[in-house]
């Protein structure tokens, strides 16, 4: 059991997301950075799609009520327990009564805290993900006691493990994101598409789990910026009348009425999610559906085989 001593920012439970309800207007939700989310579960021996705590744009402090094994992944955070500071992407043993402090630093927006045995959270519409705007799922408040399940595996085998993230994904504040051309490509002039593919964009400060607004050279439409509303996905890049791209993220609306110039690939969504407002310089590069899917399958495979055991003792906190 974990007790919530302090939370700020956007702190939610997230599993792999809520599927099958988009036709009623319910977004998928799920993690902003699916790779970090799944890796946190891999490190703690949970199913990859188990619910973990997503900490975004803020901090969190928890107290372990009994001995447990915890892993924190993501970017832009560090994790402290007792007198030690750990790097992310490791699992460690936390003694009952000690605190785990997920601290904001620079270099990203989202961290994922998984616990061996998983969190015992109620499933709503088939998912444990919190969707704040739709009032679905559990929120996490100061003073809450978060119930956890029992791990099938021995703590000693789960603690002191690392995930060599740099082998699979390179978080960067100047990423080149791969995109698949959008279904409304013909709504834009060749110049408009070249602007999109050859300019640098920054992330505006008005961003959240719904969408990332980008700022940079405006993209010209050929005619109208209005489209009859249609379904879209996470990663869809909409261009409204002002020409500034908006990328749909985990809690993004199920449908939209602006033309979509492109879609950020699954494999590259974590890179975008961890871009920092006003800091990151974002570029786009076109790819094919086939290549995008091959890279996604490759990163997924990495999650199933990537966890390594390390024997450095200070990962075991007594």
């Amino acid at each position, binding site marked *: 059991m974990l007790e919530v001593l302090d939370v700020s920012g956007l702190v939610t439970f997230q599993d792999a997301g809520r599927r099958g309800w*988009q*036709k*009623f207007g319910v977004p998928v939700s799920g993690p902003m950075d699916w790779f970090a989310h799944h890796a946190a579960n891999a490190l703690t021996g949970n199913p990859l799609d188990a619910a973990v705590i997503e900490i975004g744009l803020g901090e969190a402090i928890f107290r372990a009520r009994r001995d447990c094994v915890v892993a924190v992944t993501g970017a832009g955070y560090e994790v402290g327990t007792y007198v030690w500071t750990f790097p992310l992407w490791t699992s460690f043993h936390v003694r009952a009564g000690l605190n785990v402090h997920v601290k904001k630093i620079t270099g990203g927006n989202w961290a994922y805290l998984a616990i061996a045995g998983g969190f015992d959270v109620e499933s*709503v519409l088939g998912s444990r993900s919190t969707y704040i705007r739709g009032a679905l799922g559990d929120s996490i408040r100061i003073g809450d006691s978060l119930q956890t399940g029992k791990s099938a595996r021995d703590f000693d085998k789960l603690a002191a493990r690392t995930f060599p993230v740099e082998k699979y994904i390179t978080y960067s504040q100047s990423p080149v994101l791969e995109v698949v051309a959008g*279904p409304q490509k013909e709504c834009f002039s060749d110049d408009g598409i070249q602007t999109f593919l050859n300019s640098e964009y920054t992330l505006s400060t008005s961003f959240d789990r719904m969408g990332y607004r980008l700022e940079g050279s405006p993209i010209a439409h050929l005619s109208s910026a209005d489209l009859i*509303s249609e379904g879209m996905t996470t990663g869809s890049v909409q261009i409204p009348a002002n020409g500034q791209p908006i990328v749909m993220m985990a809690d993004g609306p199920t449908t939209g009425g602006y033309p979509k110039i492109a879609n950020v690939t699954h494999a590259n969504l974590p890179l975008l999610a961890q871009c920092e407002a006003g800091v990151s310089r974002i570029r786009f590069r076109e790819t094919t559906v086939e290549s995008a899917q091959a890279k996604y399958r490759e990163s997924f495979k990495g999650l199933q085989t990537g966890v390594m055991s390390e024997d450095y003792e200070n990962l075991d906190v007594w």
Partner: protein
Amino acid sequence: MIKPLGDSALLIQLGEEIDITINQRVHALNAILQAASFHGILETVPAYCTLLVHYDPLTLTFDQAARWVRGQMEWVDDSAHRTPRRLEVPVRYGDASGSDLEAVAASKGISAADIIRLHSGRAYTVYMMGFTPGFPYMGTLDERLVMPRLETPRTLVKAGTVAIAGSQTGIYPLDSPGGWHTIGWTPLKLFDPASESPFLFAPGDEVKFIPIE
């Protein structure tokens, strides 16, 4: 026409306008895809003249998903008469949060009673759902009710508020911001996550508003 939308969805375009015949074809195809089901197809999202199919790229390639969809499209039969589910929605007109009923009447040069008569005088189709969980986009309004959205959206519209914008009418399922003209309120609950069927409406339903006191 079938086009990829990113690496995990495909978009089926069945027309390029808001038209009841095209929309009925969307719902007919959606019903066929749902009934057929196929490993790796995650879910479908019907809209005005398109159907979006989400698939799992760990299981299916775009070509495999598109081939399956094309096969199913052959079963769409325009001559088959599909009876939509019919729902009646009681509405207390004028009882909306910051009701625009009088303002709409004034700007249209007709009385509030006329607005009520026109709005409740015909059945609407749920063309699609979106915005917030359970929000039905319904049409088509009588021409005399067509108005652009509010210039400045309200920060809070109460759950159950019935509103109009453009040639459409809708109901807010949750307290949320909103840019439509509010004309009434229904006591019906549009969204109850604890219920076995959490949503009152489904895309393709036929809806009639019944004025209540």
